[in-house]
């Protein structure tokens, strides 16, 4: 054993701490990312709520013969399309 070898311990510790820190930050980043994604989704939903009502009236205006169920289905599809464009709805659910 050389005397100098002891000096490497804090260095190892420092490197370990760095790795831990990277790991820690990474996890935190994941958490932040999750929160961000959910917030984003909810804001999108917020804005689409009114758009859905607006769209329903527009559809009804264009074709007053549509039944309630048909209108609901049409609006549902419309919102789904927007969700796909926004990369929220995914086919196959990867």
């Amino acid at each position, binding site marked *: 054993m050389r005397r100098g070898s002891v000096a490497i311990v804090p260095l190892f510790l420092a490197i370990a701490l760095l790795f831990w820190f990277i*790991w820690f930050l990474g996890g935190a980043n994941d958490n932040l990312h999750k929160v961000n994604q*959910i917030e984003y989704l909810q804001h999108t939903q917020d804005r689409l709520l*009114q758009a*859905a009502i607006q769209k329903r009236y527009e559809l009804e205006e264009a074709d007053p013969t549509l039944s309630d169920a048909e209108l*609901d289905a049409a609006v549902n599809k419309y919102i789904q399309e927007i969700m796909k464009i926004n990369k929220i709805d995914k086919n196959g659910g990867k």
Partner: protein
Amino acid sequence: MIKKALLLAGLLISMQNISFAATQTTTTFKAPSGVQQDKYGNDYIDRETTITTKNFTVDNFWSSFKEDGVNQSNYATISRSGLFRITTSATSACTLDKSLDKEGCSGQKPFLINNEVLDNPVDGTEDMYRVVFTNAKDFTNNDYNAFYPLDILRNDKYYKDTLADTNNQNTAKTGFFGFITGAIDSLFNRAVGIDFFGQKDIADVQYTPRSAAAQERRERYIANIMAGVDKEHRMTKNTKDSEATPLKTPLLNTPVSLLNYAEAQKTTTKSECKFLGLQLSSQGAMCRIMSGFGMNAWMPFFTNTKTTKIESNFILADTENALLAMNSKIDSVPYMQNTDGDEDAKLSFLQNILKPMTSMIGFMKGMFFGETKKQSVADPVERVYNFDEDKAMTLTFAVTRDGTQVDEFSHFKLLRIHSVYADAINSCTVRKKPGMLKPSSWGPTTFYEGGSKTEKSPNYTIFNREYWNSDQWVDWCQKATGQKGMFDYLFDWQKGGIFNPFQWMKGFFQAFLNFLTGTYEITNFTNTVKHGLILDLKKVNLDPLSKQNTREIRTLHINTPHAGQQ
């Protein structure tokens, strides 16, 4: 073999995918609430919508480096739901004309009805009402078939002509103001002198006939009908956050009061013929000859004055014209062309004077004014404008219970406008002067319609002892007044007609006959030319889908019913 292997591989991949369900969003609507009315009388419904996203996945990058880390986070349900208020207002003009200023428009029209109206549909037909335009001074708390004009303040910029502003000349007459002032210019007679009924009650304006203030009230009223009351001055009913707008029944007080102008609508004809200070029979030969040939112009000691006083109810004509103008815009049918109403508004002073004279015989009171007994003469002239129910204009009326405040609002589709002209004679004063062949005479006698007085008829002879009752006398007066004398022919000539000596001779001959048989002088004849306006209305809820209505969606609140991680 290779194909099979590929298929197997594909199956494996897809099986792996099945382990995570697809992210999918669904939108659902709850059944809307029943139709309710906001404080301005607009209809609204509340409706809840929910958007739910299932199996929302978030890819994790750093967790991949963790031993037990998952590279995806999956959320079973993330959902938001919101409650929305969809308000509909009947702003037909403003939604049809894109250049109209939204702030200057609303569904409220300056009309008031009693709540009794709503309890009394026409012949029990549900939701159908027939209401008559009535003078503000005739307002009663419980009239169930009348509507009254309201004076409601309006922001200047939503009806005033902006042409005065020279910097603004390019924009004037193009936008909202242009539409309203253009309509006022072209459809309504600006030259009308408006005498406000109840002028003594004006608190804020010094009353002068034909005053700018009076003119302003009139234009404001027309603008309020055409565009609806502006946003700033809308009336409110009593709700949690608003107090009912008080109605001032002493007229012409702000902010909301019953409105009336030029109320008299009376035509009075009075003949007076004097020669050297002596009263002559105005129907007599002397008078006819003198005045007929225009000799009186050179004879200052001879006067023959025939005073005809007519006052037409212009507020009624304005109301009718404004409603027709709006419907013309909606239907693209020029209702205003070749209509009596239009001509009426544009008649010159002289024409106005002559109108009752020439039209009196033809026009009769009748069913509308409850005077059906006189079948001998013509029916009242009634013009009916029918509007297509799909396109009909929707009017929001203020409803009052006791006349002190606006209690609620009611929406009606305007299906029909009846414009009725009829006259009703109030009285006729006649006196008989002795003639060459009939020397009997009697003093001035006033015959009232439906009265009980009888008198020897002009046809009375010893062989034909004919008496006339009051009605017959009044009828005779009406014809006599309508009959043209030379004086009238002179007027015809002045009006631009051709000078016709034969007509003058005819008048001369009639005058001679009168000279022989004795004359009946009509000293006073009061005739009311009635112009009635009736609306056929259908009570409706406002259709949020109609192009004539404005639809407004407002968020009441948004909440998060579910959000959870799988």
